[in-house]
């Protein structure tokens, strides 16, 4: 091996390790890890299972909201949510049929929603405005119409 190759490989290895360290630090120290909730549900009995028997938005603290939401072809339930600016919203999601995606365009909210699994993701909305929520996993013929909005006032 030439010296320049050794340098190159050391840099390459260093870069990979740097990625690992930063990812690990963010995941475990800053708790910025990707959505990985571990609860299960019977996908054929979503409507009868708490909390999904009552989907909707609920205030759980000062400036803190919980949104219990089901995803199904080709809609979200509830649709068109409104929250005041500066509030933290905890989304609890599951699918009633196929695999869906839950993305709020322009934010880092992006999660897969699988039938049989309850997914959770949290976002703080500081900027007032209208946010587009969309399904980003192909779910069928009407996939492109599966969207709703979150209005931050």
């Amino acid at each position: 091996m030439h010296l320049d190759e050794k340098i190159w490989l050391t840099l390459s290895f260093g870069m990979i390790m740097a990625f690992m360290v930063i990812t690990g630090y963010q995941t475990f120290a800053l708790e910025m890890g990707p959505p990985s909730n571990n609860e299960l549900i019977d996908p054929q009995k979503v409507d009868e299972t708490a909390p999904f028997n009552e989907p909707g938005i609920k205030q759980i603290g000062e400036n803190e909201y919980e949104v219990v939401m089901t995803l199904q072809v080709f809609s979200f339930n509830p649709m068109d949510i409104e929250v005041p600016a500066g509030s933290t919203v905890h989304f609890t999601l599951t699918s009633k049929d196929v695999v869906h995606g839950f993305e709020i365009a322009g934010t880092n909210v992006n999660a897969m929603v699988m039938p049989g699994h309850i997914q959770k993701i949290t976002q703080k909305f500081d900027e007032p405005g209208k946010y587009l929520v969309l399904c980003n996993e192909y779910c069928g013929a009407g996939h492109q119409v599966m969207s709703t909005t979150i209005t931050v006032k």
Partner: protein
Amino acid sequence: MQTSVSQNKVVSGFKDKANKALGISRQDALISKSYLAVAFIALLLGGLLGLLQGLNRAGLLELPAWLNYYQILTAHGILLVVVLSAFFTIGYFYAGLSHTLGGLLPKVRKIAWIGFWTKIVGFVLVVIPILMNEASVMYTFYPPMAAHPMFYFGLALIVVGVWFLAAGAFINVAHWRKNHKGEHLPILAFFATGVFVLLVGATAFVAVEVLFMIIPWSLGWVDTINVMVARTLFWAFGHTAVNIWYLTAVSAWYVVIPKVIGGTRFNDYLTRVVVIALVIMNITGGFHHQIIDPGISLPIKFMHVFMSLAIGFPSLMTAYAMFRVFERTGRRKDAKGALGWIKKLPWGDVRFLSPFIAMAAFAPAGAGGIVQSTNQLDQVVHNTMWIVGHFHLTLGMSVIMTFFGVSYWLVPYISNRVLTPKMNKLGVIQTIIWTIGMVIMAFSMHTAGLFGAPRRTSYTTYGDFSSSLGWDPYMAAVGVGATLLLVAVIIQVYAVFNMMFFAPKGTTEFPIAEVEENEAKTPYMTERWGVWVVVMLIVIAMAYVLPLTDMIVNAPPGSPPFKTW
């Protein structure tokens, strides 16, 4: 030509003579020709469908009622990712095996044909339900979306076909080694071995998914399916598949390109180490497709970030190797200064130009790949157009442009014809059009993806939301890119069939570069494929036992099949 180590000279001298006298045997050539013909027909069809998609998403074309966007998208993915790449890889490596191992054995030829027809039948079975709009499930076919059972039977047959071809390759390699005791496998055959090992390893996962989970479920023998397990098995295959096409391209970079530019190959030992590393670490990389899935704990996801990033290391070694070879060759041709060697490269030769652009594209493509396999960064781009941009860079440029470059000598070689200067010029033009098209498209896709535009979504403005989010101009650019690409596809397909049937007769060289003289002998350890396969299996076991056991033991009640299109 350079002088080689004495032993190599004897071998290559004999080989050159044999080639000049015999060329490739007609029967072996026919196998490769058939595979390449299918590959490029798939390219034409896939490219056409790609244009329809591009125009649709640009908002310029409304598809007729009988033609669903998602149907086209499914066909586009399967034609290009499964058919084009696989058929080209097989055609190329079988030609390579035939050339470097002194011809295919008669029984291997037979196996290759059985494999060919199995794959074709499988492919027809896949296409019929897609045409009937019974299988618009994408090439990833995530349950609980259920296509017509015929679709899955077709996939299973395609896998069986791959196994035949892998078996054929292994038999031929074993036969050669028996007759060449203690010698290193010729480098191209070495790459082929690695590729076929990976193909078997990767398709084993999808075979389990399709045969034991999806088929009984789609036929109604069992009521429900474990969605997460199916998805995990798919990605163990799906990600590896694209990496196999990449490894095929890499083989041309290491073995063929140095010869085309009149140089020598990079260090033989390191080359083989790169191949082995890519084989061992590849299958475990598939997990980064599930970074934002529920049901997988954070430590497991974190460990799989490492498994995915690890593949980056041999790729970075490759990047070094390529530039080292270019630089060395340039200096031999009296290049001056630090970058003088750039001028000495044969830019007008399509056999070099196209793969070179492919390599250059791999720099941003690889960087994007590192982004996607890193937990938090992936969360920003997962399932957006960014991903589509990424695999158009990796597959559409790095892999396919290498394949195009290869076709300009491989097709004449197996057809006993030559590449005329006129055809070379056409190839250069084609390369430039393709490059411009791909750059426009990939750049727009990456950018739109960063803004949040979702992938795999038919034209929609989300109630005029898309314009306020600024996606529309980029999606229009995708349409422009797609148009340019189809022009390039048509030229390319014309070139291939022209070189196959109409170009002037003559002999074309199979360009395989020699090693540098006075290079240290490669340790024999690299040839012990049995050991490498076991190491690969252990690595796979380590990576997959943990999440799979959890998904199976802590499974939710399963899902019934759905047809949602």
